[in-house]
C-alpha cells in the first residue's frame, strides 16, 4: 500500500517533464497509475471478504504514537476502487478536454496524480496522523487545481475559500485526534474499531465533535457548504474527480468509518442535524440554478448530506443503505459532470435557458446524461433506488418518534433530487431555449463521451447484475455489520417503503416538469442565509471584531499601557488580598512625630508634583520626595541606605534637569480628560493595594533571616569589618559582578545610541 501511494507522488513528479514533451498524450500515460490502484483494490476486495488484510506500519516518532500506517479494510478498498476507477476515466476524459498544447496540461496532469495519491493515502490511512497528513494534502492539491485558471480573480477567490474552509476544518480535526488520542490512548482507526462499540463522554466526546466538524467542512455540509459551489471555477475533469466523486467523500468516509463503532454522543447529533438540513436546503437551492454545473454542485452538496445523514444514523442497516448510495452517487455524479463538460466544450455555455433541444443533436450525450440523472434520482432499476429504498425501509423499522422526522427529511430530499434532475434534463435536452440559442460548435468525439457513459450506465448495470455491487460492497458491509450477505434487490419488493419512494419520485418529477411549480420554488426565499452568505458573514464579523479588539489592546498610548500594567499587577494582588482581613486598629501609627511629619511632607510633595505644570519644578519636587525618603530612612535607623538614596537622588535630579532643559518649559494640556481620570484611578488603586499589602504584612515576619549569619561570618570568612563590603565582594560576589555587567551594557547601549544621534546631526 505504501508503495502504491508513493508511486502516485513519484508519477506526479515524473509527469512534469513527460507532459512538457508529450502534451495532452501524457494524460493517457498517467491513466496507468490509477488503473493500477483499481486493480489492486479489486484483489483486496475479492480477498478481504474472508480475511482482514494486515496493515503496514512505519514508525515515525517513537514514543509519541505518531506513525505512518495503512490498512485496507472493506470501505477503504471500496474508496480506493472508486479513486482508481474514476481516476482512469477522468484521465481519459482530460485527454479530450484540455487543449493538448495548452499551458495547463503539465500542471493539471501532475496535480491530478498527486491528488489521487493523497486521496488514496487518505482512505488507506490507519493512524490518525497519517490520515490528517493526506487529508490536508488533498486540500492543498485541490487548492491548486481549483486555481488552475489563476488569472481569473473568481478562480483565485474560490480556491482560497476552499482551502480555508477545508484546511481549517482539517486542523480542527487534528486537534480532535490529538485530544482523542491523549485521552483514550487510541491513535489508530483500527484501534477505535477494535475497542468495540462504546459511548464516549467527556474529553473524547469533545474530540469527536471536532473531528466531525472537520468531516462536515470537507464534505461541504452546513454551515461550511459554501466552498463547493464556488469551487466549480475549476476545470470540469477536476470537478468530476475531486468535487463529486472523491475528495468531498472524505468526510463521508470518515463518518462511515467511525459511526458503526462509536456509540451516541453530541457528534452524532451534530452530523445528523447538519446533514439533514443540508440535504433539503441544498436540494432546494439546486432547483434554482440555471447553470448546469452549479446545479450539479448544489446537488452534490445535497447528496453528500444524504450520505452523512445515513452513515451517522445509529442503526447499521441505515449504514448499509449509505454505502450503496455512496457507490451510486460517485458513479452517476462523476459521469454527469463529465457530460456537462462536454456540453460546455461544444456549445461554450452551461446555461439551461440557452440550450435548445439538445437531445436531437447530441444523442449520445443525452443518453449518458439521462442515465446519470436517473441513477442519481433513484429511478427504479438503478442502484440508487435500491439503496434509498433500503434506507427508508430500515428507518421505518426503528421506533423512536424522531425517526419519522428523519423519514420525512429523506422523502423531501428524494423528491427534490427528482425535481431538479427532471428540470435539468428536460431544460437542457427536450425543450427549446428561452434566451438566445447557443450554437453547437464541434461535435464531441466518441472518446470524449465514453468515459462519462461508462460511469452513468454502471449505475444501472450494477442494479441489474447484483454480483458486481456485492463484490464491491461486500467486505465493507461485513466490516461494519458483521454480515457479508446483504442482498441488493433488483426488483423492489412491495411494501410501504416502495410506495413512499415512488410517491416521492412522482412528486419530484412533477415538480421539476412543470415550470410553474419550479418557479414558485425558486421565488420562495430560504428560511435563513446559506453557504456563501454564512461564510461572508463570519468573515466580515470576525474581522470587524478583530479590528475593534486591535483598537483596544493596541491604543499606542504609553500612559494607558502603564496604567494597564499597574492595574493588572495590582489587581492580581488585590484578588488574593480580598480573602484576608486586616485589623487596622492594631496597626502602629508611627514610630515618632518626626517620622509622621516626614511621610506627610513626602505625600504633599508628590501631590504637588502631580499637579505641577512646569517641568523643572516637577523634577525638583520629585527630588524632594526622594530626599524626604532618605530622611525617613535616617529616622528608621538605616543611615547607609539613606546615604545611597541621597547620592542617587542628587545624581538623578541633575541628569533629569539636563534632559528637561531641552524640552518645553511646561507640560502640554492637550490630553483628553478620560486619560487623566484613568491615570488618577490607576495611581489610587495602586496606592490602596500597596497600603493594604503593607498593612497586612506588618504582623508577618519570616522565622529566619540570613542577615544574622552574615554578620557572624563576615570577619571569619571574608576578613571584613564592614558587613556591606563583605556581602558585595564575597558572599554575593556573583551578583555584584552581574550588576557591573548590567551597568556595562547600559553604557554600551547609551554610547551606541548616542553615536547614532551624533551621526544624524553630523549629516544634517
Amino acid at each position, binding site marked *: 500500500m505504501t508503495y502504491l501511494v508513493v508511486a502516485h507522488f513519484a508519477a506526479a513528479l515524473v509527469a512534469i517533464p513527460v507532459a512538457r514533451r508529450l502534451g495532452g498524450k501524457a494524460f493517457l500515460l498517467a491513466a496507468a497509475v490509477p488503473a493500477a490502484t483499481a486493480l489492486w483494490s479489486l484483489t483486496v476486495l475479492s480477498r478481504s471478504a474472508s480475511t482482514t488484510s494486515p496493515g503496514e506500519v512505519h514508525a515515525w516518532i517513537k514514543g509519541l504514537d505518531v506513525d505512518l500506517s495503512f490498512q485496507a479494510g472493506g470501505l477503504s478498498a471500496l474508496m480506493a476502487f472508486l479513486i482508481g476507477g474514476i481516476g482512469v476515466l477522468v484521465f481519459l476524459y482530460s485527454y479530450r478536454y484540455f487543449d493538448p498544447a495548452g499551458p495547463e496540461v503539465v500542471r493539471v496532469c501532475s496535480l491530478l496524480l498527486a491528488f489521487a495519491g493523497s486521496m488514496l493515502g487518505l482512505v488507506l490511512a490507519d493512524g490518525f496522523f497519517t490520515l490528517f497528513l493526506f487529508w490536508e494534502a488533498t486540500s492543498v492539491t485541490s487548492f491548486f487545481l481549483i486555481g488552475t485558471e489563476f488569472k481569473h480573480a473568481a478562480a483565485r477567490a474560490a480556491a482560497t475559500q476552499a482551502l480555508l474552509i477545508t484546511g481549517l476544518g482539517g486542523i480542527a480535526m487534528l486537534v480532535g485526534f490529538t485530544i482523542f488520542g491523549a485521552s483514550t490512548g487510541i491513535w489508530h482507526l483500527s484501534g477505535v474499531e477494535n475497542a468495540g462499540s462504546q459511548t464516549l463522554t467527556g474529553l473524547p466526546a469533545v474530540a469527536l465533535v471536532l473531528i466531525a466538524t472537520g468531516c462536515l467542512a470537507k464534505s461541504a455540509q452546513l454551515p461550511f457548504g459554501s466552498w463547493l459551489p464556488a469551487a466549480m471555477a475549476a476545470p470540469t475533469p477536476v470537478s468530476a474527480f475531486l468535487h463529486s466523486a472523491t475528495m468531498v467523500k472524505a468526510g463521508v468516509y470518515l463518518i462511515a468509518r467511525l459511526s458503526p463503532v462509536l456509540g451516541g454522543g453530541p457528534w452524532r447529533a451534530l452530523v445528523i442535524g447538519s446533514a439533514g438540513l443540508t440535504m433539503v436546503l441544498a436540494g432546494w437551492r439546486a432547483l434554482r440554478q440555471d447553470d448546469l454545473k452549479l446545479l450539479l454542485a448544489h446537488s452534490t452538496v445535497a447528496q453528500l448530506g444524504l450520505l452523512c445523514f445515513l452513515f451517522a444514523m445509529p442503526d447499521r442497516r441505515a449504514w448499509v443503505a449509505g454505502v450503496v448510495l455512496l457507490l451510486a452517487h460517485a458513479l452517476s455524479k462523476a459521469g454527469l459532470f463529465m457530460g456537462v463538460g462536454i456540453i460546455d466544450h461544444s456549445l461554450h455555455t452551461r446555461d439551461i435557458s440557452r440550450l435548445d433541444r439538445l437531445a436531437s443533436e447530441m444523442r449520445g450525450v443525452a443518453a449518458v446524461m439521462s442515465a446519470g440523472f436517473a441513477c442519481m434520482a433513484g429511478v427504479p432499476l438503478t442502484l440508487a433506488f435500491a439503496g434509498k429504498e433500503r434506507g427508508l425501509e430500515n428507518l421505518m423499522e426503528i421506533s423512536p418518534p424522531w425517526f419519522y422526522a428523519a423519514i420525512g427529511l429523506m422523502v423531501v430530499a428524494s423528491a427534490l433530487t427528482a425535481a431538479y434532475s427532471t428540470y435539468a434534463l428536460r431544460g437542457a435536452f427536450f425543450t427549446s431555449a428561452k434566451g438566445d440559442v447557443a450554437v453547437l460548435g464541434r461535435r464531441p468525439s466518441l472518446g470524449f463521451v465514453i468515459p462519462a457513459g461508462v460511469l452513468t450506465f454502471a449505475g444501472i448495470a450494477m442494479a441489474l447484475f447484483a454480483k458486481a455491487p456485492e463484490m464491491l460492497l461486500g467486505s465493507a458491509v461485513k466490516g461494519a455489520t458483521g454480515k457479508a450477505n446483504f442482498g441488493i434487490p433488483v426488483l423492489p419488493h412491495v411494501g410501504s417503503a416502495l410506495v413512499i419512494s415512488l410517491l416521492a419520485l412522482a412528486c419530484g418529477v412533477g415538480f421539476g416538469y412543470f415550470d410553474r411549480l419550479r418557479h414558485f420554488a425558486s421565488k420562495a426565499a430560504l428560511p435563513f442565509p446559506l453557504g456563501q452568505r454564512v461564510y461572508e458573514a463570519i468573515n466580515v464579523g470576525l474581522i470587524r471584531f478583530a479590528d475593534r479588539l486591535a483598537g483596544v489592546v493596541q491604543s499606542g498610548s504609553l500612559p494607558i499601557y502603564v496604567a494597564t500594567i499597574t492595574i493588572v*499587577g495590582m489587581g492580581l494582588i488585590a484578588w488574593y488580598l480580598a480573602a484576608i482581613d486586616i485589623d487596622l486598629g492594631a496597626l502602629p501609627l508611627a514610630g515618632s512625630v518626626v517620622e509622621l511629619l516626614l511621610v506627610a511632607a513626602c505625600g504633599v510633595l508628590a501631590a504637588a508634583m502631580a499637579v505641577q505644570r512646569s517641568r523643572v519644578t516637577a523634577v525638583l519636587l520629585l527630588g524632594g520626595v526622594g530626599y524626604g525618603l532618605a530622611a525617613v530612612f535616617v529616622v528608621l535607623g538605616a543611615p547607609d541606605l539613606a546615604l545611597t538614596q541621597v547620592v542617587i537622588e542628587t545624581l538623578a535630579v541633575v541628569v533629569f534637569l539636563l534632559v528637561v532643559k531641552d524640552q518645553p518649559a511646561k507640560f502640554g494640556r492637550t490630553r483628553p480628560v478620560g486619560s487623566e481620570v484613568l491615570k488618577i484611578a490607576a495611581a489610587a488603586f495602586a496606592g490602596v493595594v500597596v497600603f493594604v499589602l503593607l498593612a497586612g504584612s506588618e504582623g508577618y515576619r519570616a522565622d529566619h533571616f540570613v542577615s544574622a549569619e552574615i554578620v557572624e561570618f563576615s570577619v571569619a570568612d571574608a576578613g571584613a569589618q564592614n558587613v556591606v563590603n563583605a556581602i558585595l565582594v564575597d558572599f554575593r560576589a556573583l551578583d555584584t559582578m552581574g550588576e557591573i555587567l548590567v551597568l556595562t551594557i547600559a553604557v554600551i547601549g547609551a554610547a551606541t545610541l548616542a553615536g547614532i544621534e551624533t551621526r544624524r546631526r553630523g549629516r544634517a
Partner: protein
Amino acid sequence: MIRIINTLQVASASLVAAATPSAEGVIRAPEIDYVAIAPEAILVLGALAILLKKGFVPRRYRMMASVATGILAICASLIATGILWQRLADGAAGTAVSGILAVDGFAVFSKVLFLGIAAFAILLGVPGLRRERIMREEYPALVVLAAAGMMLMAASSDLILTFLALELFSLAFYVLAAFARDLPRPQESALKYFLLGAFASAFFLYGVALAYGTAGSTNLTSIADFLGRGSIPWIFVASMALILVGLGFKVGAVPFHMWVPDVYQGAPSQVVGFLASGAKAAGVVALLRIYVSAFHAARPSWLPVIAGLSIATMAVGVVVALVQSDIKRLLGYSSIAHAGYLLIGVAAATPAATSASLFYLVSYAAMIFGAFAIVSVVSGKGDGFTRIDDFAGLARRRPMLAAAFTVFLLGLAGIPPTAGFIAKFVLFQAAVESGLWWLVLCGAVASVIAAYFYLRVIIVMFVREPEGEDLDSDEPDPITSLGMGLAIGITLVLGIIPQALMSVLAGADLVMPGL
C-alpha cells in the same frame, strides 16, 4: 525613568545587603566553581574584548575583529557548556557558587539553546545590518552579553541573580530595538519598550522583596523548602503575582504585550528574530525555573492566574493578527499567541511539559529567525516593503524565498511535517496528561484561527499577482541564505525526525528540584 532606575537600584542594593542563601541555615563565603560559570564568563570576556580592542586593532579590521571575536566567544562558550554537560552525565547535578547557580540538565540545555540563538543572531544579523549600512562594532558585543544574560536566566537559582540576568539581556534588547534607525518610528517604539520594560522590572523586584520578606531568602531552593513546609502565606502569593508581571512582560503575555508589535515593526528585521526568540525563551525558562520548579508547592495559587493569562494571550494574539496588514506586525501578534501556547506548558508543570516547552522554544526560534530573515530580504532597503501585499506573487518572483517562507509559516501555524506541529503536539499532550484539557481546548481553537492568517499570507504569495512595479528585492547574500537554510533544516528535521532532540531532552534529566 531615572526615578524608576533609582528605585530599582536602591531596592536591589538593600536586597543584596540583606539577602543571601541559607540552604542549611549557614552562610559561608562561596567557593567559586569556575567550570560552572565558564559559559557565561567566556561570553562576558568576549564582549569586553570587543569593546576594548579599539586601541589595538587598526580601523579597517575592527568590524571583522568584532564579529570574529563574537563568533569565537560563542564557540568557546559552547565548548565550556559541553564540558559542563559532560560533568552532568557523570552525575554531578546540583548547584554552584553557594547555591546561586543551578547546574542541571535544564540549565545546560537552555544554555545550548541560547548560544544557538546568539549564533543565529550573528549569522543573520551581521550581513543584514551591513546591507542596511547600520552595522556597528558593538552589535556582536550586545549579542553575546544578551546571550550571557539569557543563559543566567536559565541557570539562576536565586531571584536576585535572575533579576540581574533579566536586566542584562533586556538592556541589550532595548538598544537593539532602536538599533541605528534614523527614523522616528523605531525610536518611539524602542523608547516605549524601554520605559515599559523598566516599569515591569520594578514589579519583578518588588515581588522579589516580598518573597524575601516571607521566605527569608531569595534562593529558589530555600524558597521551595519553605513552601514545602506547609501553608503558603498570602504575602508570598502577592509576590508571585508581582514576579509574574515582570516575566509576563518579557514573554509578551497579554496584557503586558503592548511592546511586541511595535518593537517587531520598528526594529530592523535583521535583529527582530533575535529579540523575538531570545526574549520569549528567556522569559519562559525563568517561568519554568521559578514557578514550575521552585514554586511548585504553590501551584494551586498561581495556576488560575497563569492559565488565565494564557487564554487571554492566545485569544488576543490570534484574533488581532487577523486584521494586520503588515507582515512584521502580523508576526508580532503571532508571537504573542505563541507566548500563550508556551504558558500552557508552564501551567501544566510536569517534567513532560517542561521538556515539551524546551522543544517548542527550539523550534520557535528556528522558525521565527527564518521568517524574519525572509522578511528582511523581501522588504528590501530600510524595511520599505513590509505590507502583506508586498508579498503578492512572490512565488513567481522568487520561488525559493516563497517556498522557504511557506515552510516557516506552516511551522508557525503548527502544520505537519514541520517542527511547529510536533512542538504543539507534545506540548498539548503533556498538558492534557496533567488534566488541563480545557486549556488545551482553548489552545486548539486559537490554533485553528491562527492557521487562517498564516494561510492567508501563503495564498497571497502563491496566488495573487504582484502589485505595482516589480519590487526588485535583493537576492539574499550567501551567509543569509546559509542561515535560512539552517533554519529550514531545523524546522523540517525536527518536524520529520524529532526523536533525536526528544531523546536528548529525555536524557538530559530535566527534572528540576521540586518537580
